[in-house]
Structure formats: C-alpha cells, structure tokens
C-alpha cells in the first residue's frame, strides 16, 4: 500500500512532482492523514480550474493536449485530471486519455494524472474534487479536468470548475439533444471542435441562437468558438477566452462563489464516498449484512425489506 514518506511535506513545498503524485494517490484512496492534509493545504490558491466536457469522440483529449501545450509554452504550471469510466463488471479500468497528450519537454511544468470513475456517475470520480484541490494547493496555475464523456449527463463538472467548457462536433444534432439535459445552464464557453468538417458554422450559429434563450442576465455572454484542435487552429483564441472568463470571475467577485461551490462539492462527495465505503465494508465483513444480501440472491426475501433491515443494522439502529 502506498504510504506518505516522512519527508513528503518538505518535498511538496519544494514542488517535487513525486510528492504531488503520492499525495494524489493518498487522497484518491482516502489514506492521507488529516494533519498531513492540513500541512499541505495551507492558505489560499490562485489557479484556475477549467472543466472540459462533451460527448465521446468530440476531441476532448486532443483539445486539452493543445491547451496544455499552449500554457506550458507561456511558462505556466499546468495540472490535468483525465477521467475514464470504471468497468461496472470488474471494477477495473483502462485509462487511455494520456495517449493523446503531446510529449512535453517542460515536464517540470506539466503534470498529467489519469483516474477511473470508480462507480461514480455524473461524469467525474468521487475523488475528483479533492484531487483538484491538491493540484491547486501544489501551485498549479491551471488545472484542467476532463470528464468521462458520457456527454449529456456530465453535470458534476459544474461543481468543481471555475470555467466550464462544452465541446461539441459539427452536425449530429448533439446540441439539440443537449438542450434537454441542462448543459446550456452550466456552460461558460462552447467550443465547436473539428471545425474543418461540414456544418461547423451552422452548428456555431444554432448554439449561439439557443444560448439567447438561456441568457439569464449573467455578466458573461457565453461565446461559441470554433477550433480544429488536431491542427492547433484557433487554440490561442480558446485560451484567451478562458483567460477572459477567469478575469471576469475575479472582477465580479464570482470567483469566490466558484470556490465555495468547489469546496462544498468536495465535502459532499467525500461524505458520499465514506458512506459507500461503509456499506461496502459491511457487506464484506458483517455476517448479518452478508446474510441479508445472500437471502436476496436466493430470492428468499423481499429486497426492500432486506435492504431496510441491513441499513438499520449498518447504522447501529437495530439494537
């Protein structure tokens, strides 16, 4: 099992990448001691969290790799969290988003971490919020979070990002579908990727039109950009747009609101994680709970009656 080395804190403060890597593991598995977290998560952080979401195949990974390259060339420190789904059957995962990351000469400045969703729906892993906070406290100027990419159900990104970027591809009508799923309410920036394909301008126009109906008097008018990320076209404009949004948040004092949302979400998901783990542990180690579940698998009891009894027992309310 991975442990916290005695000199983890010192190495962290020296910006040792290995210390960040190890802390991310401890935080993901919830094996970090709290006094360790308190020592590492000191004070305020300044970085921007950019969330990138969109349907599978729109080009999130390529877009992010170009964005990362752009920031690294400007001398910024960039962290990435790339999330892929865990298999509901085996609990394992293939984390393949790294494949599209460009080789970075400036490895001191770019840190890429893959994570599995581990049963979480909503597009993120339950650990994503606390791993994002770790990267921010480490001193990243930008933290880019890529969601699982189920597309329309990836709302959780709204809770951790300062800037939510929705990526779409031309045609296909995803943007029409998206209107049904609440995506328009969470977007700060829309990007039509693969803009070299036919229908890109029409897609851009249609989304712009739809956004007018959602313009709930925000300070920020949600722009709809076009890029061809695989050819690095217009990526500088996309990066500038993210900068503008961040500046707007800071000027309007909405930045604090985003932080509050992120911290609250980290708290909520941490508790949720603990509850699920308690239930899993009970099913692996508590004979009464194991036997209740086993009666359900034998079709011997009503599943809800058994479930209620198991839950009462887990809470310690059945004495």
């Amino acid at each position, binding site marked *: 099992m991975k442990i916290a080395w005695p000199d983890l804190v010192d190495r962290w403060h020296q910006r040792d990448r290995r210390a960040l890597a190890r802390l991310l593991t401890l935080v993901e598995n919830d094996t970090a001691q709290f006094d360790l977290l308190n020592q590492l998560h000191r004070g305020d952080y300044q970085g921007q969290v950019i969330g990138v979401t969109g349907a599978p195949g729109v080009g999130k990974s390529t877009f992010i790799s170009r964005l990362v390259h752009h920031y690294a060339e400007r001398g910024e420190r960039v962290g990435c969290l790339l999330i892929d789904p*865990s298999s509901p059957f*085996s609990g*394992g995962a293939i*984390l393949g988003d*790294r*494949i599209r990351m460009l080789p970075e000469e400036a490895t001191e400045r770019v840190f890429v971490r893959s994570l*599995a969703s581990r*049963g979480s729906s909503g597009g993120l892993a339950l650990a994503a919020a606390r791993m994002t906070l770790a990267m921010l406290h480490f001193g990243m100027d930008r933290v880019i979070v890529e969601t699982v990419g189920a597309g329309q159900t990836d709302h959780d990104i709204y809770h951790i990002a300062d800037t939510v970027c929705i990526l779409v591809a031309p045609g296909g009508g995803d943007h029409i579908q998206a209107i049904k799923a609440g995506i328009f309410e969470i977007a700060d920036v829309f990007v039509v990727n693969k803009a070299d394909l036919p229908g890109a301008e029409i897609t851009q126009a249609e989304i712009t039109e739809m956004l007018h109906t959602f313009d709930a008097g925000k300070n920020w008018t949600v722009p709809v950009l076009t890029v061809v990320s695989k050819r690095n076209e217009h990526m500088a404009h996309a990066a500038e747009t993210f900068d503008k949004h961040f500046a707007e948040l800071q000027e309007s004092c909405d930045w604090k609101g985003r932080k509050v949302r992120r911290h609250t979400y980290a708290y909520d998901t941490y508790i949720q994680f603990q509850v699920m783990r308690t239930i899993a542990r009970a099913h*692996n180690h508590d004979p009464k709970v194991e036997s209740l579940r086993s009666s359900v698998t034998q079709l011997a009891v009503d599943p809800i009656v058994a479930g209620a009894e198991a839950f009462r027992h887990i809470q310690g309310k059945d004495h």
Partner: protein
Amino acid sequence: MSDQTHIRILIAKPGLDGHDRGAKIVARALMDAGFEVVYTGLHKTPEQIVESALQEDVDYVGLSILSGAHMTVFAKVKELMAAQGLADIPLFGGGIIPDDDKAKLLDMGVDAIFGPGTSTKDVVEWVREHSGLPKEAGVPA
C-alpha cells in the same frame, strides 16, 4: 463499490514498435481482473514512460516490446526509474523475447517476463500473487 485498494498498472509501448494488439489484450485482461490500467499508446521514449510512471504513481510498470530492442529498452527504463526514485516499482514485460534474453533480463532485475506462448491469465495471476491478493478472484461489488 469495493472497499479494496485499487492497483494501478502502466502498460507502455516503447520505441518504433507499432504492434499494439498484444499490449491492448494484456491491458484488457488486467482491466477484467479489476485493475486500473494506464495505457500510454505507441512510440513512447523511455523518458516519457518513466515520467508517466512517476506522475501516475503506479504500482507496476509493464513494457510490450516486439521490435527486438528489449535489452536496451529495459536497461534504459530501469536506469531512469532508479534515477527518478522509482526503483521500488516492479517492472515486467512481454513481447518477442527469446528465452536467453529473458534469463538475462531477470538477472538484470526485471521482475517478470511473459514471452510468446504465455497467456494473459499468467500475467494476471502474477500481479495478483505479487501484490498479495487472494487466489480467488473477488469481483468488486
């Protein structure tokens, strides 16, 4: 959701070798066994592979090499891992590796080699045993 700690394994394809079917099959088998596999994709340098292992804080590093360059690549990766303070991460591999070379690699400190004829089951069993998991495949809830 399971309460077990998740084991993370890096599967890498170094160098000019463009044959990734084997690596993908092994990655898939490891995923089916409940592990989290970070797959690097093709044409990575030893430096990129070791940097990935560092950032991902993996429990194992596996190299798939069908190009014949295994002696040089394994040596280089081992050297870089040690330089980055990652010498404690077990290193294994597979591909087209003759028995003589397999013996030399194991002597060099590579932890396991799965050459032609071995099955993915062998790789999975080795990881399970090496990480102290019980023989019985407990599928996470």
